């Protein structure tokens, strides 16, 4: 009896492992920054480079930190979804214009709309390194205490907005 059941059990175990493997996303690296304070920065604003923004300016507010660039093709597919999210005014959206030319970035916002309350420039990618950015676009959710609560790698989809971002933002807005 065991002679017949054993191969079946092995087959099932193997299938389970292969099925799990199919659903893994090895290119998505879990961020060690979750539940940590936001990395400090003081960066010039894209629209007014003489002004600077630092995370302390956003204390007490729930905000999204979206890493984008005009050279990033998947940012283009994400852009209308961010525009829509911005219209709902659920949270402040801060853009990190990553390794981009200011003119190209401003042109992009003029053409496709500007979902960002403010965008800051990171031309040499140093802020990106501090935030563990490895693939653009990336989106972080930061709570009122300045703690990173969630990180999304890759373009945000409408499903992500409905199922993850909006509920999380609502929860964080309710916190003190």
């Amino acid at each position, binding site marked *: 009896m065991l002679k017949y059941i054993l191969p079946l059990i092995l087959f099932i175990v193997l299938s389970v492992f292969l099925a799990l493997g199919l659903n893994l996303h090895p290119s998505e*690296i*879990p961020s060690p920054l979750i539940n940590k304070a936001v990395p400090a920065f003081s960066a010039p604003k894209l629209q007014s480079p003489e002004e600077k923004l630092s995370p302390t300016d956003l204390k007490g507010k729930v905000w999204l930190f979206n890493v984008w660039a005009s050279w990033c093709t998947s940012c283009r597919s994400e852009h209308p979804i961010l525009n829509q999210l911005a219209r709902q005014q659920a949270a402040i959206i801060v853009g990190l214009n990553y390794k981009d030319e200011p003119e190209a970035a401003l042109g992009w916002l003029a053409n496709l709309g500007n979902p960002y309350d403010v965008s800051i420039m990171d031309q040499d990618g140093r802020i990106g390194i501090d935030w563990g950015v490895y693939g653009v676009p990336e989106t972080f959710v930061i709570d009122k205490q300045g703690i990173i609560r969630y990180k999304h790698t890759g373009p945000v989809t409408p499903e992500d907005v409905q199922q993850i971002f909006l509920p999380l933002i609502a929860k964080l807005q309710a916190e003190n």
Partner: protein
Amino acid sequence: MKPLSIIGNGSVRCFISSCILAVVFLLILSGKTFAGVEFREFADPEQQEAYENLTKELRCLVCQNQTIADSNAELAADLRRQVYEMLQQGKSKQDIVQFMTDRYGDFVLYNPPFNLKTGLLWIGPVVFLLIGLIAVFLFARRKKAESNRHSHAEQGHENAEKLAKVRSLLEKGDPS
């Protein structure tokens, strides 16, 4: 007249064109690697060695099967710059590794530390080897026991046959 026609021979022409193609390919490839060369000045050979070792131990997060020393990705270049600058500032190897894992997690290390998350990675092969050895041992022992039982049974069978023959001979009586 005849030798000239060899040039027109299909296989030779094919050989020549593939040679040209190979040379063109090599030129393109070498151009790529030259583009990746960066010139760094080091205070002393130890620092250079530390730089070379570190860039070979850190994973490029974009092309995940390459080290930042091997990769031409922009992020790899930024991380090489980061390593170089930190060494210039007199930071130790441990400081730099800590800096990278704080931002990108253990995944950035090609030689991950032993902890709860990486435990399976380190112990897994040993466990599988042990399971294999135990299985082979059990299988071999069962095989041996089986073959022993078989030969005993055969011997018994042979003896019974001989006994029957002797009996029949005795019953018939000796004809001589």
